[in-house]
């Protein structure tokens, strides 16, 4: 530790042979699964069939694992280091209620109306213009988020091998490209479940060790100078408001309602995990079962971040004088505490999640670009092989694009600020349009796309007028900073989207009701929500009961740590 502190590039993971062997073993497993999946073409049906017959706990874990990426692990531990316990709102307010809402209210609708993806819903409900706007904004968001994953991956390469960040970014991009090409995606759901357990195996011992080091929860409380950081509410510092009341409103409405409902109920990747389930109730249970592990994830990401902020000399110093780079909080802690062996497991967990996360972004971009944009609007009616070729080229284009956006990500000292900003631009308006279109049959196709554009423009404007969301480009007219910008931006985008959609609807022509059956709540017969395959299920498998238990648990957690 003395040596590490003396060196001027203070952070350097000293992995040895055993560590590298453990890392290599993981990738042998991942590539092995991909290889088996690909080789057994006649078996591939079995392979995916068995995937669909998996118990709901597996699809539930895949559901949250698709989200437990680099951003969540590094971002939430960084957030924990900076803001302390209020970070749990991203889980207990910002995720669980929305996941339960998805399972209880929206899933019957999604599953019953046979819409498979969000762009597909847009196309059928509002027609091509809304579909195109949605597809483009989704594609842009994926490239920006892929940049965050790539930047984090490059950070690992940097601290392991000591290469400069720009070189590491390019090397990491090449690694991810080959990972995608070698078929790492063919068995996505298996890798996600595997990855979840490797991450737990890495972070749980780290958390226990770190708690041991600071003398337990009590010891941590004594060493954190600001008592507000030890309780979740009211979270003024996180929201960036001086008033506690505004802070609670900002967290509940901005984060808890618009941002999180927007994210969890319209996100392509997550919703599709649930869509692939075997029956109506299984699809409803997927996000609900995912909620149970999800509510305990903060303990192994936020608490290590908080401990890092008090025991890592660089962060303690930086927190005192306001110069800390929190994004590396977890890496510092790993470096300071873990010996050879556990170090390898920890690096594996991080690498796995960054690569899988970026691979998922790139492939989602591919799909939407090749089929929803290129095939529908640019070059139509070519054989399927042509679009596969476009997809391959787009993989390279997306990776190069991510190298560019990685440098944008590197400008933020807390990546969560940046990520929430992106969600306020893209997800909040989408949620408004989506929910209005689902429940209001008169809403017109023109209102669909105009609302989306107006909502996104509003959130971007809020970020531009804030103090720091765009760095030096923000003009500082609005007294907002930190994650409060994205809470306010998301709220404003939501309200503007609703208002604009309302007034545009009054002035334009609605679609005939016959075309909206199965897409709008009031025009969809309730019987289509019933699935005869669920008749044999036990009482304890009822989604609403499970959701009630999850909700009760999360309320108890809020009181325990509030």
């Amino acid at each position, binding site marked *: 530790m003395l040596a590490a502190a003396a060196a001027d590039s203070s952070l350097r993971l000293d992995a040895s042979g055993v560590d590298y*062997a453990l890392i290599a073993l*993981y990738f042998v497993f991942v590539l092995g699964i991909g290889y088996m999946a690909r080789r057994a073409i006649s078996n591939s049906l079995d392979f995916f069939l068995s995937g669909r*017959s998996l118990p709901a706990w597996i699809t539930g874990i895949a559901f949250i694992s698709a989200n437990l990426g680099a951003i969540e692990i590094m971002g939430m531990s960084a957030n924990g280091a900076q803001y302390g316990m209020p970070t749990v709102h991203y889980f207990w307010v910002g995720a669980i209620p929305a996941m339960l809402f998805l399972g209880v209210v929206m899933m019957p609708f999604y599953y019953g109306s046979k819409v498979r993806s969000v762009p597909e819903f847009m196309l059928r409900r509002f027609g091509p213009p809304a579909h195109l706007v949605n597809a483009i904004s989704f594609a842009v968001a994926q490239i920006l988020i892929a940049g965050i994953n790539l930047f984090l991956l490059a950070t690992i390469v940097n601290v392991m091998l000591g290469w400069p960040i720009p070189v590491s970014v390019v090397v990491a991009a090449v690694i991810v490209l080959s990972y995608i090409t070698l078929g790492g995606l063919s068995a996505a759901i298996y890798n996600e479940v595997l990855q979840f357990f*490797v991450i737990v*195996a890495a972070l749980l011992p780290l958390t226990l060790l770190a708690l041991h080091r600071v003398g337990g929860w009590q010891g941590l409380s004594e060493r954190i100078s600001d008592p507000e950081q030890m309780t979740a509410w009211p979270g003024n510092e996180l929201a960036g408001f001086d008033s506690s009341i505004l802070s609670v409103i900002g967290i509940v409405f901005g984060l808890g309602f618009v941002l999180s409902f927007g994210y969890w109920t319209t996100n392509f990747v997550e919703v599709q995990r649930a869509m692939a389930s075997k029956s109506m109730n299984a699809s409803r249970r997927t996000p609900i*079962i995912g909620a149970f592990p999800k509510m305990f994830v903060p303990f192994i990401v936020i608490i290590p971040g908080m401990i890092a902020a008090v025991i890592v000399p660089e962060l303690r110093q930086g927190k005192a004088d306001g110069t800390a780079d929190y994004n590396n909080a977890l890496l510092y802690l790993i470096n*300071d505490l873990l*010996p050879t062996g556990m170090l390898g*497991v920890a690096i594996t967990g991080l690498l796995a999640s960054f690569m899988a996360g970026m691979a998922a972004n790139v492939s989602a971009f591919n799909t939407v670009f090749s089929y929803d944009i290129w095939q529908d609007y640019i070059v139509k009616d070519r054989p399927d092989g042509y679009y596969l070729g476009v997809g391959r080229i787009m993989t390279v284009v997306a990776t190069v694009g991510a190298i560019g956006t990685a440098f944008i990500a590197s400008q933020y000292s807390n990546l969560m600020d940046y990520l929430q900003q992106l969600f306020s631009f893209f997800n909040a308006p989408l949620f408004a349009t989506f929910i209005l279109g689902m429940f209001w049959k008169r809403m017109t196709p023109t209102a669909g796309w105009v609302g989306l554009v107006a909502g996104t423009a509003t959130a971007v404007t809020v970020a531009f007028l804030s103090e720091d969301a765009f760095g030096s480009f923000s003009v500082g007219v609005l007294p907002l900073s930190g994650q409060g910008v994205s809470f306010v931006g998301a709220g404003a985008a939501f309200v503007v989207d609703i208002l604009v959609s309302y007034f545009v609807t009054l002035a334009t022509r609605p679609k005939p009701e016959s075309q909206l059956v199965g897409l709008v709540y009031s025009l969809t017969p309730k019987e289509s929500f019933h699935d005869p395959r669920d008749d044999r299920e036990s009482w304890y498998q009822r989604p609403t009961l499970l959701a009630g238990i999850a909700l009760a648990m999360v309320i108890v957690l809020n009181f325990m740590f509030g």
Partner: protein
Amino acid sequence: MSADKTSTGGREAGQRSGAFDVRIVIGVLLGIYGIVLVVTGLVDTSEAELAKSDGMNINLWAGAGMVVAALVFIVWARLRPLLIPVDYARDEPESGPPTH
């Protein structure tokens, strides 16, 4: 309903899914990790390493934990093997209420 199909076909499908059963994959990976960590924890007990992890032999303890978790996954997969339903409508009874 699965009995309609020839039993060999059904069993083959079951075995195939056994190799792909994610619980086995998790179990084997965690098991190897656990054994490597336990061995590392037993062999490498230098003062420097122990001091780093605050006097706790974290490799040994975490390794033991992973071995236990691996056994749980493998035993579970053995006791409740995963069968591929031949008919989609017939769904596999789930393995009890979610544990967490």
